[in-house]
């Protein structure tokens, strides 16, 4: 399996998709840095300014998260199905290796690369905010916890894509990945709106509608929990040790935090996807 991990990592570095996403990321970070330089030009001291700054940070992380998801799709959608479609799999699986080793090896190899890339993106966005003088005081524990959840989302997404790539064709895997990510994203937004409706006390009707939207968000989180992990990341990053939270309201923030049960679910979700993908792949005729 070590060989598969090693060569998967090497292959990703040599792929054009990686180069494309790297260029895109640099472009994004440059534009973001330019934006920050203009925003932080005027002095800011009020609590509203800090909330505004947390909104800017959340927006930066939201789009960085989006670019990482883009990289995950581009680099992994054909990780196994592509090997089958091109025929390179014949010379690999006729060797004395088990098929699950290929699935897990690909997952681990891609995970290493994605964690590295995702960490660079996260630390760049947070670092740029600190550099330009954000008034949000980040503790190391905030940054590390935030980083953990920022990296976890793409890994969960990768598990879904690897499982799908082990069972379906590249094109079908691409459709599944994009649809699932889109559903999770929309579901997450609906859940935030639902929470806002409940908190703003808009009457019994508003409470009921808010609850329905929250339920819709929970269901989409079960399909692909990337958005819920993203919300957890903002919560961990922006909640101070004093208990004060700068979690913002709106599209990029997180007003509702996932429960511990959701994270137990996420753990089993990943294990199940990899197990099921490897099992179905082992039974496949190639």
């Amino acid at each position, binding site marked *: 399996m070590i060989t598969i991990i090693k060569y998967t990592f090497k292959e990703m570095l040599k792929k054009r998709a990686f180069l494309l996403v790297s260029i895109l990321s640099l472009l994004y970070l440059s534009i973001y840095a330019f934006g920050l330089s203009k925003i932080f030009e005027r002095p800011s001291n009020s609590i509203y300014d800090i909330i505004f700054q947390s909104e800017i940070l959340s927006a930066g992380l939201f789009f960085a998260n989006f670019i990482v998801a883009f990289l995950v799709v581009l680099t992994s959608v054909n990780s196994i199905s592509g090997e089958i479609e091109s025929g390179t799999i014949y010379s690999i699986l*006729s060797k004395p290796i088990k098929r699950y080793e290929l699935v897990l090896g690909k997952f681990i190899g891609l995970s290493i690369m994605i964690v590295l890339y995702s960490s660079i993106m996260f630390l760049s966005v947070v670092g740029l905010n600190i550099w330009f003088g954000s008034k949000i005081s980040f503790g190391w524990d905030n940054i590390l916890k935030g980083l953990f959840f920022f990296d976890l989302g793409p890994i969960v997404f990768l598990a879904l894509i690897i499982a799908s790539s082990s069972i379906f064709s590249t094109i079908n895997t691409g459709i599944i990945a994009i649809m699932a990510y889109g559903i999770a994203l929309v579901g997450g937004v609906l859940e935030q709106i639902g929470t806002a409706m409940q908190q703003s006390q808009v009457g019994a009707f508003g409470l009921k509608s808010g609850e329905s939207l929250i339920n819709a968000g929970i269901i989409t989180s079960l399909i692909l929990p990337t958005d819920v992990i993203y919300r957890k990341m903002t919560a961990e990053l922006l909640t101070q040790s004093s208990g004060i939270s700068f979690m913002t309201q709106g599209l990029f923030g997180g007003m509702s935090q996932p429960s511990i049960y959701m994270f137990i679910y996420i753990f089993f979700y990943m294990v199940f996807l990899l197990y099921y993908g490897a099992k179905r792949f082992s039974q496949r005729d190639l």
Partner: protein
Amino acid sequence: MVLETQNLTKQFNGKGGFKEVTLSVEKGQVFGFLGPNGAGKSTFVKTMVGLLHPTSGFAWILGKPIGTVESREKVGFLPENFRYHDWMTGKELLTFHAELYKIKNPGKKIDELLELVKLKGHESKLIKNYSKGMQQRIGIAIALLNDPEIVFLDEPTSALDPVGRIEVREIIKELKSQGKTVFLNSHLLSEVEMVCDEVAVINHGRIIAQGKLEELLKEHTHVEMIVSDYTSELIEKISRLSKEFQFKEGKLSFKVEDREKIPIIAKMVIEADAKLYQLNTQTSSLEDLFINLIGKDEVS
């Protein structure tokens, strides 16, 4: 036995593939597996190396059931539709496959194989810059990396020029001299005829002939005779001993399945007081045998 199958079947939703194949291949043999396109040859090889799961039946490689990791430890395989990771160089590709076999310090072996397949000097080039023939050569090198006991070569010369074909033939002979077993799928009957000890012919997924090449060819000897002063009784007797019998104005043309029938027929002519002017024999080529077997199978 290096390879053994018992009623092995692989079908796709009840169609295609091969049915109830029972084969055994001895150590050190070059075994030719012949058949027209779509007969099930590649499906059979892919089943042997664990890429396809059999529908029913049993098979063993070096005593290990197929589909297990152990059964593939001493196996080399060159796929028919060979494709390799084109972002690697030749040397990287060989190192990658050597690592998959868990070969420690493969450098020397890789150099030897590059020399053998005439790719020395091209090892630093990317695979995507290799010609199809070069990719087939490196495929052969990959198949030999682990010093296999049995090598499955599926159309190993399909992308090679005549010189390349001769070189592959020499490699096969060399493997045989080292006591290795070669399972050769090939359309090129002349190639099979030159290197194989034993063959099996498959058509519509079923084995229709199997045995030592020499014996199979001997079974189909073509005889031409010119006689005079014959009787109709003599001609009748000869026709009963032969196949595809033709007779016209003293000229007889027929096939015998056993060469031992030829002196018997000659003796019958002499004893019947007929005059024998000419007796020519010609052993069938593998191509004749193949066309004959496939033709008969299609009729039946």
